[in-house]
């Protein structure tokens, strides 16, 4: 049982990374970025190619320093991949509509269109079946706690996501860019009057969320391999996590991911059917909407600081 709990926590951390992408974009544009799952996938593919061309079929590196090297570089490269994907999406599916002041429905439709386009473009170019990724470290069990096993993979996720979440939190609440993002989130017009470059700020929001999503894609790629639809389900869960934490709220997304992970995986211990996790996640989403639509920590990116 503890094993499931641990699995929930570690998967939940990945959800948190992805949920940040949703929450940042929602906070700024008040839109659900339907193409975020493809950011995840692009990050995964970037990670795959990095590992494929560096490690390839060679022996899995065993030294700690090699692990750190591959993981750090992998996260950066995947994050960059995710950033590029997010920027491309922003540039082609959002900005032309923003320039025309299009209704919200149009954004949602063009985002879902961009999502399907990227999904199938990757499928066309790289095949439509999952491919295993070269492992950057030996995934052995490091610690056993009350029957729950913590593997190397779990440790890497824990350290890397915490580092990423911490730095994102610093960026959003301490840096100049973060201040611009929060300003645009709370009032786009006033912010632009105050001299904030709204277009650039929105792009940087997408880039930040994209980096986090890409990094999450890297971890998913190591664990499950890459395929063109690897992003869909995690993204759906991550959205649930974002709503759970209060959409638009950065810290909420972090907390929401972990809570959702726990809530999703622990019951599987009793129920035994792994496909039920999706049903649970969905029920959680509907229940939050019913009883606490603003999430655990409340909404509003601009006002939580």
């Amino acid at each position, binding site marked *: 049982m503890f094993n499931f709990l641990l699995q929930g926590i570690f998967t939940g951390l990945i959800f948190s990374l992805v949920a940040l992408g949703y929450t940042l974009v929602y906070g700024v544009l008040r839109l659900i970025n339907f193409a975020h799952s493809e950011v995840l996938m692009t990050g995964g593919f970037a990670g795959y190619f990095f590992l494929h061309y560096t490690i390839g079929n060679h022996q899995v590196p065993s030294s700690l320093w090699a692990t750190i090297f591959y993981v750090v570089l992998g996260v950066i490269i995947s994050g960059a991949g995710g950033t590029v994907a997010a920027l491309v999406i922003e540039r082609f*599916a959002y900005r032309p509509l923003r320039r025309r002041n299009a209704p919200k429905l149009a954004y*949602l439709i063009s985002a879902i269109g961009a999502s399907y386009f990227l999904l199938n*473009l990757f499928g066309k170019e790289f095949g439509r079946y999952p491919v295993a990724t070269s492992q950057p470290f030996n995934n052995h069990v490091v610690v056993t706690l009350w029957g729950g096993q913590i593997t190397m993979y779990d440790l890497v996720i824990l350290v890397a996501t915490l580092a990423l979440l911490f730095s994102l939190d610093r960026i959003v609440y301490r840096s100049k860019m973060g201040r611009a993002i929060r300003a645009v989130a709370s009032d786009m017009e006033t912010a632009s009057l105050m001299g904030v470059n709204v277009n650039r700020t929105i792009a940087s929001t997408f880039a930040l969320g994209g980096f986090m999503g890409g990094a999450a894609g890297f971890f998913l790629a190591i664990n499950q391999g890459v395929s063109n639809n690897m992003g869909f389900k995690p993204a759906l869960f991550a959205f649930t996590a974002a709503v759970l934490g209060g959409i638009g709220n950065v810290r909420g997304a972090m907390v929401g991911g972990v809570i959702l992970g726990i809530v999703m995986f622990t019951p599987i211990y009793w129920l035994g059917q792994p496909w039920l996790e999706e049903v649970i996640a969905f029920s959680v989403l509907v229940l939050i909407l019913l009883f606490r639509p603003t999430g655990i920590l409340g909404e509003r990116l601009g006002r939580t600081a």
Partner: protein
Amino acid sequence: MSTESTVPKRRYWALNGEDARRMCTAIVGGLVLAIMTGPEGAISDPTYGVKTSLLTGHVVGYFIFGVVLGCLLTYRAKVKDGTWRRVRTARRRTMSERVTAFSSIWRYAFLAVTTFLVALISLIFADFSGPVTRNKMSVHVLEHQFLYTRTYGYLVLAVALWFVVVNQVMQLSSFKLRSLPRPVLGLSAIIAILLFSLTSDPFLPARFSWRALDPHASNSLFHHWTTYLWLILGLAVTISWLFRRDPIDGAKPARRSRALAVTPEMRIITYVAAGFIVFEAPKYLSLYWQISLYQQIGVFCLLAIGLNIVVGFAGLLDLGYVAFYALGAYVTAYFSGALPLHPPFQLNPFFIIPFAIIIAMLSGVLLGLPTLRLRGDYLAIVTLGFGEIVYVLANDWTQVTYGSAGTGAITNFNVHLLGINYVWNPVNPLSYYYLMIGILIPAIFLFDFLNHSKVGRTWAAIREDEVAAQSLGINALKYKVMAFAMGASTAGVAGVFTAVKVGHLFPNTFVLQLSITILVLVIFGGMGSIVGVLFGAIVLQWLPSYLNFHSYFGYQQADLYLYIGALLVVMMIFRPQGLVPSRRRRREILDAEEGLGSADALGAITQEQPS
């Protein structure tokens, strides 16, 4: 024109960075299209697909396409903002003024020469559209064209058309096309279309014989779908021309004066023509197209007009529409005893329809109420999740659905009433088609009535300004949930039809991507316009099969969603109102872009809570 005098001199070639950007975008678009139509890659050689697409001759056509597109876009933009409008000192004479200035002999000489040219063009056209096996374009071959019946068809059409045009332009006689009684006009247009569609069929034998029209003959004319394409397109144009109404005063002024007013006889003619096509044409199709007419087009028309209620009428976004479709289908399976769970009583599929409606509607209400209470845009992702859940349940919950192994046999439609005993048989796909028509046509009319009733106006009000609508006592939530549930129940009915035809259900029929397909049918045609949505459904459901059948343009069935995704983005950027937009919806979108009101119902609808 009067404003031009006040504007200082304009530079004719005022190209700027914006134009360069536009051109680059168009060229990149062309290159992306080249990649889209290029070969499949594989992860073992990740650059193969892009390399082959971009570094071989394949790319040239798409590059040129991109450049042409860029030029067109630039032209459109420049004309729109007035940069490229020529400053005219004197009014240019129109073509007709120049021609009518000829003296009478020259007039007839002009007529003779141009008629000859037109005939020649029609010959070349006949040559090109003829059977593929012959050499094209040589004088020798053109001569031989007269051995073919098809040539005469083109000749008659071209010359007739030319005389009509010349008569209008040169005023050879006092006869005016518009003074013709409208039924005659409509009828002759339809005859012309019919003639054209028959003639343009490449399967037309060298010597025309009535046998070519016999649907049972092996090389029958009507085996080929292009005939119908032309028929449908021509009729669509004719109908839209006949039914064009006056713009409401104050709206954008029409460029031309209106062609015709809708008169009762006009309506009757179009209905008769449309009815003829809908009921008669399918009989002449090959079995392949008869099947897809039901399974690909009919069912999807029903799904599309259902989703249109949600997206077009109510301005909401439903990305899990296929879930309700699946629900309808599995309800059918349940009441047919095809699931592990046995029903209390087995039902004839006709009696399952009400159950499917009620169950889909209930699930729509259950899903819509908590979601719509909060924000419209949450509905999109909640339905996305719901679509996935329904798929997962259908696929994995084997105790209830048999999972991916597929359900047992589903009872076919059958009638045993008053001595009539008829069981629908898959061998004859048309029997299903007519049944589908029997439900589709009433549905079209009912939804059209709905749109033009109090309910439709209320939806329009909510889309436009929810706060104002509420201040009039309109319960926005109720109307949104109503639209959502009505869309869902339509999908439920479509599910029954699919289940019965397919016989055994497999979860893969209801993948989530199908929702996006249905969405694109609605968006492409024009959300909120039933005619548009039907147009979108027919064209977009037919086109992939057609392209796949002939493997044109390097189209592969696996890439369908690639094109659909791209189409959605392109439509949203360039023509969000769709190709055949509803007038109300188009105005709303344009208004919203100017900052007047909104064009969807996705805003917050709860009380603005001071926090």
